[in-house]
């Protein structure tokens, strides 16, 4: 047996030759993916179930007297289970986005476009919609025939039924999405009583239409032409990234071997029998045998399809498999491949990601459910009041981020003799903020003329944390 020659590092994808003149725009060719079952298809369905259970289920969960997850944009309060977040807590959203981005980097470095292939809503809804399509219109061949057939009653019924189901799923998705921003049970009641607000109707229809259009019609074109992630994820690959690869050395030249063991042994063909099942199952309609392409979302369906064929041909599985470029070129064993997966890049991503997650969680757990903003009164700088006291006036916005009524005690520090002369205890309703006028007094002569840094110490009576805010106390000349 001769040493297999490694494939060329980059292959220019040959394109079907076009005779004559071409235009700048091309009509879209509809893709009819064949359904396939197997290891990776099962993973895809598991992730469909997981993501959709969370998405459709979460708004119906209750936490105490309210919806567990509710982003109340009108009141500018964001409820996340036990947490009440204010717009001032935007840093947590930033943290979440950084964690998401880093996770994307990590997963992409390890195994390519895992997000695209398994978890992206575009993929997930396309999968759901294709399943509906297959149940109603039939298999790939049946669907192709139905589309090319002349108009008939059967076609009308099937198409109509399919669109009704699609639109229902779309509207339910839109309804659920809006349910994250408006209490979903109220929204449901409003819908039943046909008194939904016009903006709610608009957003339900908007997201419903987006789901219907993207999952029913746009499908792979969103990934190919619209998605920025799809393009920049490819830039995060390296030669040790696990990508869906066709084993050129083993498969080529393609062809169906002659029947019979002896004849097969003498066959000039590789293991690929050119059945084109890998092309037919591909949701983006590419031929993986042409090498890595930007259209490939890494779903692994061609792996499943090819393995089925390899089993039938009694040849080893894995003609198409998740493999790294290095392992393909060097004929590495799986153990060698795994060792390279733990390369510095992956370890650094993992370490940074873990640190960020721990930091984010720790700061959420130890967060003080109280915020204070101090605004000095602009009208009066300082005034002299009875008892030889100098007085400055401030407005404090006290934000209660708990769901109980809280009594806060306001104290001042930073200058000897500085004290709060207005009512020191303030009551704030649950998840509300309140502006209070606070007066600070300082005995005349206790500090030289000028501006002095002082602190407001606001503390919840009976635990639940305290906050210290900086302010300025002015002493006139």
């Amino acid at each position, binding site marked *: 047996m001769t040493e297999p020659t490694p494939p060329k590092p980059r292959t*220019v994808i040959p394109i079907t030759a076009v005779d*004559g003149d071409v*235009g700048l*725009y*091309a009509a879209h060719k509809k893709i009819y993916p064949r359904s396939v079952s197997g290891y990776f298809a099962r993973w895809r369905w598991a992730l469909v179930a997981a993501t959709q259970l969370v998405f459709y289920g979460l708004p119906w969960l209750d936490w105490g007297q309210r919806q567990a997850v509710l982003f109340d944009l009108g009141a500018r309060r964001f409820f996340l289970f036990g947490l009440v977040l204010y717009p001032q807590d935007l840093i947590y959203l930033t943290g979440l986005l950084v964690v998401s981005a880093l996770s994307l980097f990590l997963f992409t470095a390890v195994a390519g476009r895992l997000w695209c292939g398994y978890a992206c809503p575009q993929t997930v809804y396309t999968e759901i919609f294709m399943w509906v399509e297959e149940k109603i219109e039939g298999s790939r061949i049946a669907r192709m025939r139905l589309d090319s057939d002349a108009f008939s009653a059967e076609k009308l019924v099937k198409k109509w039924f399919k669109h009704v189901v699609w639109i229902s799923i779309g509207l339910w998705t839109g309804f659920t999405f809006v349910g994250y921003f408006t209490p979903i049970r109220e929204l449901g009641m409003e819908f039943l009583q046909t008194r939904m607000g016009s903006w709610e109707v608009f957003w339900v229809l908007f997201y419903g239409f987006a789901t219907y259009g993207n999952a029913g019609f746009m499908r792979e074109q969103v990934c190919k032409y619209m998605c920025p992630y799809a393009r920049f994820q490819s830039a995060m690959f390296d030669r040790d990234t696990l990508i869906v690869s066709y084993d050129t050395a083993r498969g080529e030249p393609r062809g169906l071997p002659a029947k019979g063991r002896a004849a097969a042994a003498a066959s000039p063909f590789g293991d690929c029998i050119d059945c084109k099942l890998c092309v037919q199952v591909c949701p983006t309609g590419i031929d993986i045998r042409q090498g890595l392409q930007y259209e490939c979302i890494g779903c692994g369906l061609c792996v499943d399809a090819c393995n089925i064929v390899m089993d039938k041909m009694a040849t080893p599985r894995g003609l198409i498999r998740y493999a790294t470029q290095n392992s393909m070129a060097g004929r590495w064993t799986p153990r060698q491949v795994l060792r390279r997966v733990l390369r510095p890049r992956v370890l650094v991503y993992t370490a940074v990601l873990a640190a960020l997650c721990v930091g984010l969680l720790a700061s959420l757990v130890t967060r003080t459910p109280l915020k204070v903003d101090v605004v000095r*009164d*602009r009208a009066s700088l300082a005034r*002299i009041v*009875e008892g030889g006291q100098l007085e400055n006036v401030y407005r404090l916005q006290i934000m209660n981020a708990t769901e109980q009524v809280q009594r806060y005690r306001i104290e001042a520090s930073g200058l000897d003799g500085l004290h709060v002369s207005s009512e020191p205890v303030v009551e704030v309703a649950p998840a509300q903020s309140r502006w209070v006028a606070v007066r600070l007094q300082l005995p005349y002569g206790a500090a030289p003329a000028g501006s002095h840094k002082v602190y407001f110490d606001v503390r919840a009576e009976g635990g639940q944390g305290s906050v210290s805010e900086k302010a300025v106390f002015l002493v006139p000349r």
Partner: protein
Amino acid sequence: MSDFVNVFWSHFVTVIALGGILACALLLWLTARFRGPASADNTTGHVWDEDLREMNNPMPRWWMGLFVLTIVFGIGYLVVFPGLGSYRGTLAWSTQGEYEKAVDKANAELAPVYAAYSAQAVEKLATDAGAMAVGERLFLNNCAQCHGSDARGSKGFPNLTDGDWLHGGTPEKIHETITLGRIGAMPPMAEAVGSAEDVKNLANYVLSLSDSPHDSVRAGLGKSKFTVCAACHGIGGVGNQAVGAPNLADKIWLHGYGQEAIIAMINGGKTNQMPAQQGRLTEAQIHVLTAYVWGLSNKTATVAGQ
């Protein structure tokens, strides 16, 4: 829209906007019609980094549909909304109009709330926690700029919480003050009083009225000079709310404490103004504010009421 200083700019904007749309449409039409030979390897022929080639794939046709939609939307928008120079659009939409609509809507929503408040007497309203929360916000937005957010004022701006009133502290008087505003005028009195020494003596007499630290000899000399002041401030300096003359016999010094401040006031006089809120605030809002301000110095009454 009258934002243009010259009608030329209106036409200028119109021509650029419409010309831009027309140019886009023309470009779209030309590219849609274009047909040329395909390159052999379907690349543009550009090569970077040794082997990186740019593919020459055609754009999906639905993308062109989006361009067409954009143009249709753009034209529709320019017909309906103001965008072409000083053309107002068929909807006559304007930010001013949106603002007025929002104000009208809010007023309509608040009308029943204010109607309920207006029906109550000031003394009763001051015990209503909801009304006082509204009053506090009205005060912070309209009054706190001068009187301070705690209503205790500062030099030149009266304290509204101390029960000392220049123009009267009854609900009717407070209402009148807010509605029509007040002008407190103290004329320069130096000439009427006499020499600088006389003024100084008079200042010490004024200080003596409130039993503040003063030179009793000078105060005794200045007493006769107070006759001219008594016309407004009253005999004994107790003030006169009818003309807004402050009480000089208490320890409240709106425009500054001590001999120097009083001398400056006698010599220079002072005109102090509270602007009228009529027209800025509605009658119902003024009613609620009256209750709020009245309640500030009548805590015992409001607490008892609760």
